[in-house]
C-alpha cells in the first residue's frame, strides 16, 4: 500500500515537473513570437500612419497642385458629358 502511494507520488511529481517545464518552454516561445508580432504590428502601424498622412486630402491636393494639376470630377463635367 505504502509502496503504491509513494510510487504514485513520485510519478505525479515527475509528471508535474515535466508539464511545468513544457509550459515554461511554450510560454517563452509564445513570448518571443508575441514580441515579433508586436514589432511587426508597430512597423505596420507606422506605415499605416505614414500612408494616412500622405494620402490625406490636404496632402494629395498639395501634390496634385505641384505635380499633376488634375481637376476633380464636378457636377458640370457630368452635364457636359450628357450634352455631348
Amino acid at each position: 500500500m505504502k509502496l503504491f502511494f509513494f510510487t504514485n507520488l513520485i510519478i505525479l511529481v515527475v509528471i508535474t515537473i515535466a508539464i511545468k517545464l513544457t509550459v515554461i518552454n511554450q510560454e517563452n516561445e509564445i513570448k518571443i513570437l508575441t514580441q515579433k508580432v508586436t514589432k511587426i504590428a508597430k512597423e505596420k502601424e507606422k506605415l499605416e500612419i505614414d500612408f494616412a498622412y500622405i494620402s490625406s486630402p490636404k496632402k494629395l491636393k498639395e501634390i496634385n497642385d505641384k505635380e499633376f494639376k488634375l481637376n476633380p470630377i464636378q457636377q458640370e463635367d457630368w452635364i457636359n458629358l450628357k450634352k455631348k
Partner: protein
Amino acid sequence: MQPTDKYIYENVVPSKNKSFSTNLRFNDTNDLFELEKKKKLIQHTKKINKYTLTVVLFFFCLIIFNLQKIFFANNQNFNSFSKSIKKERGKIFDRNGELIATNIDTKDLYINTKKILNKTELKKKLQKIFPNKKENYFEDIFSKKQYIKIKPYITINEEKQLKQIGDPSINFHKSSKRIYLQHNLFSHLTGFKSSELKSKIERNLDEHLKKGTNFSLTLDLRVQHKVHEELSSSLKLYNANSAVAIIMDVNNGEIISLVSLPDFNPNHPEDIKAFSENNLAFEARYEMGSTLKIFNAALVYENNSDLEKKKFKIKDGYQITSDKLIVDEGIKKNKLNFKEIFTQSSNVGSINIIESLGIKKQKELFEKLGINNQISLYGLNVVKNKLPKKWDSQASKFISYGYGISISPISLVSSYAALVNGGYKIKPKVNLSESYSKNRILKDTTSKKINILLSEIVKNGTGKKANVNGIKIGGKTGTSKKLENGKYSEKKVITSFIGAFPIDKPKYIAFILFDEPRRNKSESLESFGGNTAAPTFSRILKKISPILNRNNYIKMNLE
C-alpha cells in the same frame, strides 16, 4: 519428569482475528505476554499507516491543485500579458476607415541634475538643441536637485543630438503621443488630448478610448475636406466672423460632414484660442430668421388648413407691438398667395398665418420636431435651445419669422430632416456603430408638400443662388439681425441656408451659416442668406455630390 506434550490452550485467544487462530501453540507461559505485546504493536502500526495514508493523500491533493494551477492560472497570466500589449489608446476613424486620430511612440527627455558633469557646457548644448526655451530655463532647472522632465515628445533629430552630448544626466523615457493626421478637419469633433488636458470626444469617451476601444465617426473625410475648403474660402470672401456647415443623411441621422470655423489644430493644443474651440454647430445657438418660416407651412399642411388657398395682405405691414411695425421691405406686391409668402420670405405673411392657426398648434409642432428638447449626441455636448420665457401670442408671432427663439444649428437640421424625409423624427448621430430609430411625427403628404415648396423657393424664390445644374434642390434662406445690448443691430446679421437634395426624394440635408458676413464694408446690410449662404451651398454641393451620390447621379444625368 520428562516433558510430555506441549501445553495447549484452546480458549486463550478470541477467534476473531485469523492470524491468532484458536490453535495457537505456546512453549511456555511467557509466550502469552509476548502475544499481548505483538497485538499492541500491530495496533500501533495500523495507526501509523492511517497517518501516512492521510499525509500521502494530502500531498496527492496538493499535486492535483498545482497541476490545475499550471493549466489554468498560467493561461490567465498569458492573457494579461497579451492584453498589456494592446493597452494603447483607441484610434478614431472616419466612416470609410480612414485614420483620424492615433498614437505614435516617442520619448520624453529627463535630466538628473545630480549627475551633471559640466553644468555650463550642458546648458550651452541644450540651449542649441532647444532654442525656444528661455535663457534662464536651464539655469533654474540645474539649480534644483531633482529628476526633471525637460521636454515631452522629443524628435528623432533632437534625440540624436542629445545622445551625442554624452552626459550621464540625460535620460529618455518611452511615451506615446496622440496625433491627429487630418489636422484641423475634425478638430471640433475629436477635440484634443495633450499630456493632461482633453476635450470633446477625447474627453467624453476617455473611459472607452483608454481601454483601447476604437471609435468610428459617421463623417466622410473626402466630403469633410471639400466642405472645409469651400467654407474657409467663403468665410474669407464674405469677411465673416464665423461659419458653420452641416451635412446630414435625412433617413438615418448620420452626420456626413460638420465644419465649424474658426477651428484649431489639435496637434498643438497650446496654440488654441478660446473662441476657436467652440463647436458652433452644437455649442452655439442663433435666432435663425426666415429658415424657421417653413414650420408655418408645415403647420398649415399638417392641419389641412384652407390657408393654402388664401391671399395675404402685405403692403401695410403688421403692428406687432405698440412701437414695432413689421414691414416686408423688399416685396412690392400688395398681396401674396400662400406659396409666395415662402418664396419671397414675407415676415408679415408668416405672422398672418400663425395668427390664423394659433399658438397651441405651433407649440405642438415644435414639441414634435424636438426643438423644445435638448439633443443628445454620443460623445459630444449640445447646447439646449433657448425658448421664449413666456410663449404667448406675441412671442408666437416673433417665432413665426424666426425671432425670439435661439436654436442650435444641429437642432434646426434635425427638425428640417423630419420635414423632408417623409415625416419621421430622427436623432442625429456621429457614432457609426450607433443604431437609429424612426418615429413618424408628420403626415407623408405634409412632407411631400414641404419638399415641393422648398423646391419652389430655390427655383423662383430667395434661394435661386443655391441651384446646381443636374441636382434637384429645395431649401430656405434665412437672415436675422443680431441682438446687441438688448437691441437688434442694423449692421450685424446672421445669414443661413438650409437645403435638401435630391428634393424629389431627399437623401441629404445641408446647412450653411455665416455670422456677421460683410460683403461690402460700406454697405454691411447687403448680406442675406440668399447671397452668402446659398451660393456657398451651391459651391459645396457641386464638389461633394459626385462623392455622396455617384450612382444616382450618373443615372439622373443619363435618363
